């Protein structure tokens, strides 16, 4: 039914207003299965808003977003179904502070998917091993470093077995020495074929893992291309100017 070149995320003419401010202006973007899309742009350019719209943490003013043939509507049960299929990783990790690393991961599978505790724990242990934190299963978020918290947060999102993963500036709240451990996990995820939408300015990750780089400014997509195209030969003036600041 689904051919691999059919987009798994279709963002179609999306507009989002906060009062009088236009955060997103007529944005369209397709993401194919297995594609890693990196979104860059100055702060306030709408990149986080776009990402948060994909799992409906933001309501759109107009336009539509399709996830794997399901239209994101206002219907609550549909939104929940979409959210089960779209994992999200936040800038500030947002681990549940009253739960251990393991319990953070088992909560959603048990509550949302009604998976039994034994099976949920097994899934969680496998995922913790995958992000290299098996020995931290019993620790509370406060007892983990930022990098460790973010790796647990990635494992927590993966536990729902999502088709798409969203990363909202996953490394910008981290100390420099912890960035690599998180990026390594993300790189591995990309290699394993996960579809990823990433808001980040990590150029190393972009070169190594991104298939597509999208440059946004003032709520619009200015330019889109492969990492080499965008970073080495940007066509637009605004892209050039922005890249000069961050490179």
């Amino acid at each position, binding site marked *: 039914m689904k051919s691999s070149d059919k987009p798994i995320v279709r963002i179609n003419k999306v507009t989002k207003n906060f009062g009088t401010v236009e955060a997103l202006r007529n944005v369209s973007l397709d993401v194919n299965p297995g594609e890693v899309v990196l979104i860059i742009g100055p702060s306030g350019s709408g990149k986080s808003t776009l990402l948060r719209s994909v799992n409906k943490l933001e309501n759109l003013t107009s336009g539509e977003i399709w996830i794997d043939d399901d239209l994101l509507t206002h219907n609550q049960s549909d939104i929940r179904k979409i959210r089960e299929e779209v994992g999200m990783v936040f800038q*500030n990790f947002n681990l549940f502070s009253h739960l251990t690393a393991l319990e953070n991961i088992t909560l959603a599978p048990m509550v949302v998917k009604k998976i039994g505790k034994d099976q949920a724990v097994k899934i969680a242990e496998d995922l913790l091993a995958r992000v290299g934190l098996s020995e931290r299963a019993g620790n509370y978020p406060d007892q983990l470093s930022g990098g460790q918290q973010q790796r647990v947060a990635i494992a927590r999102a993966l536990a729902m077995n999502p088709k798409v993963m969203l990363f909202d500036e996953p490394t910008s709240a981290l100390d420099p020495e912890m960035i690599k451990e998180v990026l390594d996990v993300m790189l591995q995820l990309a290699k394993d074929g996960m579809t990823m939408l990433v808001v980040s300015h990590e150029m190393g990750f972009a070169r190594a893992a991104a298939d597509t780089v999208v440059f946004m400014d003032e709520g619009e997509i200015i330019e889109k291309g492969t990492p080499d195209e965008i970073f080495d030969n940007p066509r637009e003036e605004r892209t050039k100017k922005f890249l000069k600041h961050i490179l």
Partner: protein
Amino acid sequence: MAEIKKTRIEVTDGTLIPGKGEHSVFSAWRIAFFGAIALIIILPVMKPDPYFEILKFIPDGVLATFKVTVLSILLSTLIGLLAGLGRISRITLINRIATVYVEVVRGIPLLVQLFYIYYALGKLVQVPRLTSAVIAMAFCYGAYMGEIFRAGILSIPKGQMEAALALGLTRGQAMRRVILPQTIKVILPPIGNEFIALLKDSSLVSILAVSDLLRRGREYASTSFMYFESYTMVALVYLIITLFLSRIVAIMEERLGRNEK
């Protein structure tokens, strides 16, 4: 009680909650607590009549006070949780009902409410005195508890709810499994304060002919004419109970805080 948006909320019309640093031998709490215990032992020994007689007379009252307090606490916490959730509800009707309830209750003195509910209930149904006293206390304290629940829920960072929703939980599930468990830690000190305040205010039910601690003391005084002696013992018993409870609240607070560190 204005809107408080801090992680640690202090609503102080209860007793002083001992600070964590207060571990010296002569802390205020120890002086008050052990002083009261010493008095309640020494007085009856030195002057068995009337002090020992009074001490023998009031245990029934202590039991009634505990009954009213514990039942009111349970019921008012339940009402408070509902009122707090109602106050933050995005459904306008529920929000208004909860807000009006809180405004009305907080605008009427507890003593007046006790009288009012007691006699209003009496017109409708025949309930035991203790039951109507508990309902009146819980109805009033539920409003204060509601404001504490509300402030506590709002003090939890927004990202916690977002993360739960992003994982596919419903709002209700996120509230039950993620937000409320964290809220309880935050609101424990003010709730503990309310419990202690409630225990003290339970003395008001003595006017509803409930034989609580204060009423038993008054009964003894009115037959023996030993007013000063009777109320001395009543005050000491109240003091010992509330100081004891305030220590328990402090210990619970420390325990709950520990697993985060």
